[in-house]
């Protein structure tokens, strides 16, 4: 299987008042289409920073990243944004729904940014898939936390589904998707996330603190102080290559 996401020797250093600080040190990984990877680690270990680099939100100080076969480290910001618009979806811990937009309008946003005409119809379909067809015109403040995260899931999958490739090169990045939810709602969201992921055959990279959630992924990367502490496959699944 060809790699949808590949990173080679990533380093990220930032300048501080007390000299340079290394946030990420020599990280490499590779993920095939349709696979899932959990990144875990303590707070401050660099997992969200790594997620941002892999998604093209930031650029490493050293190293290269390929996403959907294209090297994003050779792109400028505009090109990376265009690539994200084509094949990247995001789910955030705090949902990040725009409060001035209704549930449907939030889901429409990625399609609208791509200039698609069928944005409203597609958004309705995705909201139906997450069970919120009756909440189309509600604002985030009128939804519960669980419902808001479901809208965020619909938005993320709507974003990836815009990929014009016949084979889905879409990658979903999720940053602690259950971090703001109670256990019950968190469980439901995870079920939904994996169900949609399977249905859409998307690749999934998620950052989490929860062991149970990490165990549902095919691969696992545990980080400590900006470095990969343990890399391996989740038990019982087809393994993808994860190397540190």
């Amino acid at each position: 299987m060809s790699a949808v996401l590949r990173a080679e020797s990533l380093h990220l250093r930032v300048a501080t008042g007390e000299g340079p600080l290394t946030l990420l040190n020599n990280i490499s990984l590779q993920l095939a289409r349709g696979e899932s990877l959990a990144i875990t680690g303590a707070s401050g270990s660099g997992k969200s920073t790594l997620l941002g680099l892999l998604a093209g939100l930031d650029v490493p100080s050293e190293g290269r990243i390929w996403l959907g076969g294209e090297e994003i480290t050779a792109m400028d910001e505009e090109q990376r944004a265009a690539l994200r618009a084509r094949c990247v979806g995001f789910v955030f811990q705090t949902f990040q729904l725009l409060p001035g937009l209704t549930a449907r309008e939030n889901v429409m946003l990625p399609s609208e940014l791509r200039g698609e005409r069928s944005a409203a119809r597609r958004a309705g379909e995705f909201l139906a898939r997450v069970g919120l067809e009756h909440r189309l015109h509600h604002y985030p403040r009128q939804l519960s936390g669980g419902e808001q995260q479901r809208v965020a899931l619909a938005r993320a999958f709507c974003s990836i589904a815009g990929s014009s490739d016949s084979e889905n090169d879409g990658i979903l990045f999720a940053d602690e998707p259950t971090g703001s939810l109670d256990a019950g709602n968190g469980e439901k969201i995870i079920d939904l996330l994996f169900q949609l992921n399977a249905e859409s055959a998307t690749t999934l990279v998620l950052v989490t603190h929860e062991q149970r959630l990490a165990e549902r992924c095919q691969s696992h990367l545990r980080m400590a102080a900006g470095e990969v502490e343990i890399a391996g496959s989740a038990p019982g699944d087809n393994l993808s290559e994860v190397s540190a």
Partner: protein
Amino acid sequence: MLPLKLLFRDWRGGELALIATALVLAVSCVTAIAHFTDRLTRAMHIQSQTFLAAERVLRSSEPADPAWLEGARERGLQRAQTVSFASMLSAGDQFQFAAIKAVSGSYPLVGQLEMRPAENARSRVADSGPPPGQVWLEPRLLPLLNLEMGDNLQVGDAELTVTGLLDHEPDRSDNLFSMGARVMMNLEDLAATNTVQPGSRVRYRYLFAGDDAALEDYFQWLQPQLTEHQRVIDLQEGQPRVAAALGRAESFLYLAGSLAVLLASVAVGLAARRYSLRHTSYVAVMKSLGAGRGKVLRIYLGQLAGLVLLATVAGLLIGSLVQAQAVSLMADFFPVEPPPSHWRPLLVGLVTGIACALGFALPPLARLARTDPMQTLRRDWSNPDRREWLGLVLGPASMLLLIWWLSGDIAITLALFAGMALLVGGAALVNQLLVRGHLSTLGGSWRIALGSLQRRAAFNTLLIAAFGTGLLAMLALVFARTTLVEEWRMQLPDNAPNHFLFNIAPHDVDELETMLAENNITSTELYPMVRGRLVAINGVPAKEYNKERGGDRVGALNRELNLSWTENLAPDNRILEGQWWDETDEGVSVEVELAARLNLALGDQLRFSIGGLEVEAPVTSLRSLDWNSMRPNFFMIFAPGTLRDFPATYITSFHLPAEKKLFVNELVRQYPSVSLIELDKIIERIRDTIGQVSLAIESVMALMLVAGVLVLIAGVRASIAERLQEAAIIRTLGGRRRLLLNSLLVEFGLLGTAAGLLAAAGAELTLAVLSQRVFELPFAWHPLLWLLGPLAGALLVGTAGTLACRSSVSQPPLKVLRELA
């Protein structure tokens, strides 16, 4: 389309309400002021033209060339003519010297004549002067000549019937020194009177009105053909006092308009900053969903354009409606109906909307495009103000250009910016002092308040500057208005002299003074006066001397001057160079502007020809004087000894209350050789005009105060979310309502006091520049300003801030926190 869709969604969600409100208010406020100023100024100009009875006048001591009048007819100008002269009237065995004015049928072109057909009838407006064969008199002439309505009056060789009493003629002030009471007759009867002979002292006035361009063209054509006997009079020359009042009022109104723009801009800037901060998370999310910087910029620029369009249209409509309503409410106060508005105020509103948006809303929105998408992962929504220079440069630069364009006056523009610069620099300094305060020794409310100030140190500089701008505008306007109106009132106090007496024989002086005193009438000093011509300067013929030094043609060299002498310097005179004399000195004191036109300096020897005799005196001082003081004033005043041997008459002025008007008849009867000039009606008219100008200024000021309050609200709202959150947390931790309320009051009160103090300094500086450069008034400190500034700041900002944040105290903290999440 996406920007408009998002604009609509943001609007519906309430996100854009504040910035839109600020823009709408900015545009409507400025549009209303511009409309109002435009209409008022034009109404005031129309009214002021009534002082001339025309838009422009050609004054001549001889009849004008018929070709000149033909030139006016060809250009489609309206024309009228008056001929003024003094002549003896007779009725039976009664004689009276009077100021006669013969008017053509089209007189007056501007303004109205008011007359009564009978003594006890009500005054009514007459479209034109008396018809041929008839004459209208000033009411006091009836008892002087023992006349009744319908009687005949002899004017020279013509006998005319008295058919009206003249209550008001618009251009009465044109010929102040016409002697005696007014008689108005028809120009067609003039020839029959045989009073105007070659050599008679007659003043011909040719009145013109019409299209501005045609008038301009005509006078450009006419001007080179005029001789020294002819002059073109416009408002500036005909009524310098009214022209000066109008000029200052216009400057003031433009200042108010400029301040409105400044205030509105600050409000827009604050609102845009808040909007930008709130949208940082939006943009970070949009970027993670694949929107590039260019796309984000296009979206927000598109939104801004849509917003500006909507807000500007709304602002233009609201502004136009407000001014129409204001003008209609005040209709009774205006002497003439303000003409409909021009298109310019709409352009002013439009440009204001665009400039406010570009200068103040664009930089924070443009900054949004640089939002780092990693913020979605870091959950950090601060909006680091990198490249802040764009806002720092673009905002003030756009305001500078806009205010310059609006006011057309670089002095106003620079004065405002000097005040503003002082304010911003001071805000940073004061803020540093507040930040360095020691908290450990303070009580609960003060500790929380100062802690809050320290946490928001950078933003507080902006807030103090914004509050300060609002207060500066309000203070500068209130004090400029007070200075102007007081200055006008001081120039024409209620007891300003309104009658001049001259040609008083020396032997009548004592008796006349006694008569005035017995009637409780206070006069100015009686000045002796002789008439003489300046013939030589330093031994060189005066005209030659002046020409050699490149001097302009000076009228004072072509006519006799009124020369006087006195021991004491009049109160409205001031020595600028040289010394006033003591009793033994000889010499002449010259009015400073005439001295400049004649190239005179201290020590120059002046030779005068007085009744065929010559007298020489050195220039010993140069004086400034106030021609508007309604006191006798002279270009040349001699030391008491110099002119003692020349025959003199005396001149004085006095204030006569309206109820004592008939005293004039008694005076004229008792001293028939004395000449009397009555200025009471003119002064009344000037007072009316100045009163209306003051009203206009006060109305505009009220609009400005609204704009000032808008800034205060925008400033408070700009920081409200953070304050609400902190207050809710303190309450959750057990903080009491009173403690929080007090801390809010202290925090906003301190901000307001600091802003008020700086505003007072800025306003003082602005007023100083304005007084000297624009209003041409002497500089004066305003101690009250320094008290009112901090007080008003503490009160207004303290109250507004506490009221705006009171929900953090009155609502359950959980609700506040949830709403802010």
